């Protein structure tokens, strides 16, 4: 295999994983982790300029380069956050050094798996990559070895496995559909080939395949009612993993779904995948919004918020059209950045307060102003308030939908409003009012959090034309 930017994105993490598995000492491990993610990020960035030709296994095109850069970027910032976070976990005795070595290695494996899923040009390889990603996160979620963590991991594992099985079935069906057109062999599994003649595929088979893929990858995306693993996995795992789960893994699964949606969109006879996605999306938005109200655990709350936003994104892509697709992409990007920033904040807050229970926190803007206002800003962003980026995407989703499907847009707006109400209900407890709980100062680094928020803020006001043109291209690709 020739060494180029694409392979670099894969080789760097897997090599780092091997190294990290052997290196003792968490300080070095954390630094190496940061370094490896930084290198991966640089390699990913170079994809903008030098994009290798797609091979039978690997592919970089307009669509996935967005995801790759986003993944590597958030992966990098999270590793920075993780470096300051995990030390504290060690001090507080929640983790043992040996687990840390495992943690860092697994982090790199996860990065590798996600990158592989993104650059895969083969539906089989993609499936495998997502499977690996799931397994690694299962292990990470259970890393604290508490009852709750094990239970969350177990739940994640079982539900994830069923999901992945369904996705495999869907993958097989797609292959079957392509079989008569391309004949036996590798071609019938390669994206770049499939998409060229998808119109000739057996539409009925594609329909069934999409159902399985929607449910299979939808489980990973966290769509209701397949979401059950998500809140617990977010809540019980280490916070960097929560950030990566919400910010990246959900996206990766979504990416897979989008690829298949493109396939179906090309076929004129197949059912419109849009309506299924729109339904699932709306159910997720409304359901998650209601669930937000009764949350008492801060991380679980933001996990439900991720379900809500995934619902919005899936809804947007389901609606289709250049505006909604653009909005979906933008929303996805913004959500990744914002949600991971929120989890960075939440991680520090939980460490300062020594708990994740919302009732035990209070008046954070008073005791830890930087952290508190950071969280406020994050929640403001995630609730879709301006001038941050999510407002722009929600604006586009709602306005472009309402003229076409008024009823659906109203449901969506209802969900968004509910989520806002729920989030601020808890935010008021956490950040305002009389201070509660321990008031230790946090010495953590806030750079990753504010870097994300600054990007989100900037996107809400000014987006570079190059980025826009590129998003528009992708939106067109998505149909």
């Amino acid at each position: 295999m020739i060494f180029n930017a694409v392979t670099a994105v894969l080789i760097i993490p897997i090599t780092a994983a091997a190294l990290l598995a052997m290196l003792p000492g968490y300080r070095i491990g954390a630094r190496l982790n940061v370094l490896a993610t930084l290198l991966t990020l640089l390699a990913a960035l170079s994809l903008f300029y030098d994009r290798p030709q797609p091979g039978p296994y690997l592919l970089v095109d307009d669509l996935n380069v967005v995801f790759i850069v986003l993944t590597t970027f958030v992966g990098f910032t999270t590793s920075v956050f993780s470096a300051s976070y995990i030390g504290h976990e060690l001090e507080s005795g929640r983790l043992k050094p040996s687990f840390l070595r495992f943690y860092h290695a697994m982090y790199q494996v996860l990065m590798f798996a996600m990158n592989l899923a993104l650059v895969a040009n083969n539906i089989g390889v993609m499936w495998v990559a997502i499977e690996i990603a799931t397994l690694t996160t299962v292990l990470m979620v259970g890393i604290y070895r508490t009852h709750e963590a094990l239970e969350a991991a177990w739940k994640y594992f079982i539900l994830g496995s069923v999901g992945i099985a369904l996705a495999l079935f869907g993958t097989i069906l797609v292959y079957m559909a392509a079989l008569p057109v391309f004949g036996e062999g590798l071609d019938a599994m390669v994206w770049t080939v499939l998409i060229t003649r998808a119109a000739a595929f057996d539409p009925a088979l594609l329909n069934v395949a999409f159902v399985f893929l929607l449910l299979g990858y939808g489980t990973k995306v966290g769509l209701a009612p397949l979401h059950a693993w998500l809140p617990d996995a977010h809540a019980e795992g280490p916070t960097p993993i929560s950030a990566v789960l919400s910010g990246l893994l959900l996206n990766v699964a979504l990416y897979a779904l989008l690829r298949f949606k493109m396939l179906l969109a090309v076929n004129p006879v197949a059912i419109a995948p849009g309506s299924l996605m729109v339904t699932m999306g709306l159910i997720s938005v409304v359901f998650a919004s209601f669930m937000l109200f009764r949350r008492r655990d801060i991380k679980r709350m933001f996990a439900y918020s991720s379900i809500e936003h995934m619902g919005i994104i899936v809804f947007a892509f389901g609606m289709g059209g250049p505006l909604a697709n653009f909005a979906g992409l933008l929303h996805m990007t913004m959500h990744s950045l914002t949600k991971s920033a929120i989890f960075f904040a939440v991680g520090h807050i939980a460490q300062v307060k020594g708990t994740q229970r919302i009732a035990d926190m209070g008046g954070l803007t008073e005791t830890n102003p930087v952290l508190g206002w950071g969280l406020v800003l994050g929640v403001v962003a995630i609730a879709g308030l301006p001038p941050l980026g999510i407002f722009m995407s929600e604006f586009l989703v709602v306005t472009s939908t309402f003229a076409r499907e008024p009823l659906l847009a109203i449901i969506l707006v209802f969900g968004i409003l509910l989520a806002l109400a729920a989030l601020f209900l808890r935010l008021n407890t956490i950040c305002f009012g009389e201070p509660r709980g321990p008031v230790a100062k946090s010495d953590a680094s806030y750079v990753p959090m504010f870097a994300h928020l600054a990007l989100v803020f900037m996107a809400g006001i000014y987006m570079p034309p190059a980025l826009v043109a590129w998003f528009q291209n992708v939106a067109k690709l998505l149909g």
Partner: protein
Amino acid sequence: MTLIIALNCIAGLLAVTVLAVVIGRASVAAQIVYGASLIGSLILLFAAIGHLLGAADPVSMTLPLGLPWLGTHFRIDTLSSFFLAVVDLGIAAASLYALGYGRHEQAPQRVLPFYPAFLAGMNLVVLADDAFTFLISWEFMSLSSWALVMAHHRVRENVHAGYVYLIMASFGTLTLLLAFGLLAGPDGDYTFAAIRAAHPSAGLVALVLILALIGAGSKAGLVPLHIWLPLAHPAAPSHVSALMSGVMTKVAVYGFVRIVFDLLGEPAWWWGIPVLTIGAASAVMGVLYALMERDLKRIFAYSTIENVGLIFVALGLALSFKAHGMPLAAALALTAGLLHVFNHSLFKSLLFFGAGAVLTATGERNIERLGGLIHRMPQTAFVMLIGCIAVSALPPFNGFVSEWLIFQAILLSPQLPSWGLKFLVPAVGALLALSAALAAACFVRAFGIAFLGRPRTPAAEQAREVDRFSLAAMFACAAFCLIVGVLPGLFIDTLAPVVRSLVGARMPVQIGVEWLSIVPVAESRSSYNGLLVFFFIFMSGSLAAFAIHRLASDKLRRAPAWDCGYPDASPATQYTASSFAQPIRRVFGTLVFRAREQVVMPKPGDPGPARMSVELRDLIWDMLYTPIAGAVMLTAERLNGLQFLSIRQYLSLVFAALVILLLVIASWP
């Protein structure tokens, strides 16, 4: 040029925001921030006035910000320049006031950064020329004011107020979002120019009207969407309350006018009906709430609801007239509405400044614990009296002028051909008259209990007059109230280009009328001369005083109060605000508030006190919001069970989803 100046000022305000974040805790920060805001708003004010007086052509500008393929469009036309002037006059006054008031702030770092941001947001809304810019500014305005409401977050009520506020604000924004979604169509023609050019179908337009009414109305505080307003406005620091009540609600009115009068095109015959109904209901309900309230700032906040109701009644009339091809009458109604916008921003700012002064001086907002402030704070009391007269729509101050114009517009409405309006308008007129009378009662109560009588608490007894800046701001507002009251013609003429651009006609030129009277339609029909009325009152009053003092007696003795011969003991025997409102509560309260009074008398021979309690229910909360909140919470509670299922049950959900989807596929045609 005007636009560039304006945008630069706004950019300056945003820069001040950033600066304030950095220096928030420094002692000079307040002076810098408020000083800069004052200068910025004055420049904006003069730019706006220049544009308005020059009746200059609209100027637009596009910046490469916001939605990338769209850019950020700004435009200043006569309508926006008028509102820009209203906004910035209010801001200038508030900033001046804050130069003094801001010193008493305990948590300046929670106020200073958001204050200029809030100002910038309000200015941007008025200048926006595409849906995205409009909404982003609109919500930004809400958000920054939310942060200001949360400034004193340790008080539980404030957090609750902020919460309700934010939700209602977002609700409003989302409805406007839907409205613009309809206007822009699925292809996203978000610029106002494109929206104007489009000709949507009648049903769609109707939906937009309703959405705009809900969206802008929730921000303006129309009943029943007003619930946040009496909570949030008082919670903020007083200069911010003044801005929220006096100015931000006007920005909401601007939003409504912009969408309905400008973007939607020709109105249909029925458009006026919902606007009139809601406006009249708000006017009466607002003032009734105000009468029952004891918190000074909340009284003023409820009075804002009343005044916004008045403005919407005027707008509804203008819509009806415009729809029926009566541009002159429409011009009258619209002028009345816009003039009231201006007037209300003046006297409501003044009143909130006064409330802030009282708060600074005594630490009290509850008027039951005030009293006699006129002795300790004579200047504040004087300007507050002017504010109260103005807001009660009594001559010769400005409130009366605009209300008088609205009545004149109502009197033109029998010519409307539609039957619905024929029945509705007189009823609306009666409700307006009722609200005007009740407003006078309300402000007699507010001023009388807080400023007159004897101090009810030591805090009120030890009040001290406030600082020069605050007084300067209040006197400036009061002076404006009088000027508009006595020279309304000038302002009506200034509004002419605004009105002409929206309804295609204007009121007759006022400036040439003899003695500076105002003549809405024709002199034989009606006219009013504030200047002469003021002059006559002043002359006859002074004449009487002069004559009596000269010819009869000018001697004066002080003695204990007579009070029908009761030797008075304590200030507690004074009439309280609640007892003052009791007759009105008896008349209206049983219906509107389900008021119930309960008196527990001691047994005969028992020297213990009798106790009386009054129970008021806010029916809008009880019948609208509580059920909604209850339903949401109940659903959340029910659905919450899904968090606690076993893995097997979760798998069942997946399984069920799979089976259902397969069934869908199987039955797909």
